[in-house]
């Protein structure tokens, strides 16, 4: 039987990159069809294909790493670089929305009344639900760190408890934010204030949901004994992502909710 003479992972042929690309095509063209011809079929098809791709591709990665042992130290190093680079690209994504916010709020135009918040906008009190949200996310940063240490020290039950608590805090944030959205005295259509507020906080909320999902997958894997005290990169990647989401919220809170009010 032939063996590789190196520690790297030559991945077996896989259909998921192709199905992912097809999903991207269907979602983008589906978006255009939805806007012009009032049909969501194509976009929905793309979305389903995307979800199937993500599920199967990541399932395969778990199989390759956890069950087949392909994630040697150099391979894991590559995965770390990959996650760091991805998170960096997300930082730049949010940077753009912060740029837009500061562009409009530092030099408010006459149409807004030359002031920020613009004339007629009643902002949310930063010391009410937004402050609670800040506390919730900061607490979740503590619990995810607790979970990490529990995993590293081999405390299975504590790891499960702290990871569950982290996910619950994430859900709590999402619910609170959804209620805020419902009750807000302004909408996305209310000038540049509405646009910058809802696009920036909206994408952040989406990332909270993505991060919570990632952590939930980690919880399922922890329950099924996938992680060892030495090797649990999936969890570390989820924790990095979660900290990133928390930091973005802190910037949002300081810039939009507090300074911008």
């Amino acid at each position, binding site marked *: 039987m032939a063996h590789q003479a190196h520690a790297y992972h030559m991945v077996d042929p896989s259909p998921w990159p192709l199905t992912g690309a097809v999903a991207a095509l269907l979602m983008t063209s589906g978006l255009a069809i939805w806007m012009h011809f009032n049909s969501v079929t194509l976009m929905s098809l793309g979305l389903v294909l995307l979800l199937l791709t993500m599920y199967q591709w990541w399932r395969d990665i778990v199989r390759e790493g956890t069950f087949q042992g392909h994630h040697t130290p150099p391979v894991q190093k590559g995965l770390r670089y990959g996650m760091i680079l991805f998170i960096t690209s997300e930082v730049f994504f949010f940077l753009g929305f912060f740029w837009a916010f500061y562009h409009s709020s530092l*030099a408010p*135009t*006459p*149409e*807004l*009344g*030359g002031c920020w918040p613009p*004339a*007629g906008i009643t902002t949310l009190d930063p010391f009410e639900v937004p402050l609670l949200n800040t506390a919730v996310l900061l607490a979740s940063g503590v619990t995810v760190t607790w979970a990490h240490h529990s995993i590293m020290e081999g405390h299975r039950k504590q790891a499960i408890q702290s990871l569950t608590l982290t996910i619950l805090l994430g859900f709590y944030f999402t619910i609170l934010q959804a209620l805020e959205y419902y009750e807000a005295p302004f909408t996305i259509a209310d000038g540049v204030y509405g646009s910058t507020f809802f696009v920036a906080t909206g994408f952040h909320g989406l990332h909270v949901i993505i991060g919570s999902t990632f952590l939930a997958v980690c919880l399922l894997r922890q329950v099924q004994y996938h992680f060892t005290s030495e090797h649990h990169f999936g969890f570390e990647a989820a924790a990095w992502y979660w900290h990133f989401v928390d930091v973005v919220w802190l910037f949002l809170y300081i810039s939009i909710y507090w300074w911008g009010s």
Partner: protein
Amino acid sequence: MAEDIKAKLEQYRTAPFDARFPNTNQTRNCWSNYLDYHRCQKALDAKGVDTAPCDWYKRVYKSLCPMGWVEKWDGQRDDGTFPGKI
């Protein structure tokens, strides 16, 4: 005091350099003087004092602002939808 203002208005040719607005984009200069004129009018009217000093701001904004903006803002003030604080 009033004589100085009259003298200044008589010598007026165009809006002088205002160090508060040093850059090419003079939007804020126009906006600021438009607001200052109407605030001045409102404040001096309330006191029942002669509003002649306010004319300086009027001259400046009339020199700087595009007519379309002034007409739009005048219309908004009449409708009660002017976004600036007067």
